[in-house]
């Protein structure tokens, strides 16, 4: 099980790219898909690298990202 997981709401994402620039582990990239408003949408290109640190979500201006952490992540020293 991954240590963390990001769930991006494609309809809230406006493709600003701030999450991609903020993620310290290179998890996120701009995808080639567009939402119904015509914005390109960010996605988790390398989800296995995610630690659930939530910096991307804290930087997202549209609250498009939810972050989950694996049970026991804190015990393993990832929290």
């Amino acid at each position, binding site marked *: *099980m*991954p240590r963390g*997981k990001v*769930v991006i709401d494609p*309809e*809230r994402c*406006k*493709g*600003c*790219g*701030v999450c*991609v*620039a*903020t993620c310290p582990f290179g998890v996120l990239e701009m995808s080639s898909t567009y939402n119904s408003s015509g*914005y390109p949408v960010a996605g988790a290109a390398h989800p296995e690298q995610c630690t*659930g640190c*939530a*910096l991307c*979500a*804290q*930087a*997202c*201006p*549209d*609250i498009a*990202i*939810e*972050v*989950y*952490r*694996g*049970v026991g992540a804190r015990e393993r020293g990832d929290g």
Partner: protein
Amino acid sequence: MPETETMTKVFARPRSLTEKRFTYCPGCHHGLITRILGSTIDKLGIQERTVVVAPVGCAVFAYEWFRCDGIQAAHGRAAAVATGLKRANPELVVLSYQGDGDLAAIGTAETVHAANRGEAITVIFVNNQIYGMTGGQMAPTTLDGQPTTSSPQGRDPATMGHPLRVAEMIAALEAPMYVTRQSLYDAKHITQATKAVEKALRYQVERRGYSLVEIVANCPTGWKMPPVKANEHIAATVTGVFPLGDLVDRG
């Protein structure tokens, strides 16, 4: 079974915000500031008694996004409206949310005198150095030399003045309890700004008095920069004109 069912949610939309999407442009710090305020209202447990006073400007629809009471003030008059709310019912937590065109231009008088009287309100001042909603005109906070639609050759201090440093101006008064300038251009500064917003609201809850949090924000559309580049511009240039940090903390 989806993977997330066995995981713990560590970041979600604040309960104090509605489900409505922001009308802000991609990358705009207004949305981020709204989220930080929502998270802080949740954390302090003050949703039931918070009133958000919305300005004129891009944040004019603030009452659409906060799941608490709200009122929309005439241009620049948010501090006066907030004063009335707070004096009529001191149990309220009154939050005045204003941009630079609203607070630092048309509303300068209300802003300065509410601060000078030490009204027990919290003012969130979004300084993005431009009039965003009306099409990127020069604001009092526009940097020297910065091109805008109403100063296409760049702001010329000889005829247009220098950028107005509101936090310093308010910090010169005796009454304010807490005056700080923060930014949101990277994760570290988002954390610091969140702590400052929490302190400003906590001081009001503890009935200590007036506080102002100036947030040096971006306007990617008005500045004609991609959002990530706009954030880099804040770090490299804007914070040189508007230095970050606490100016007054009498708590």
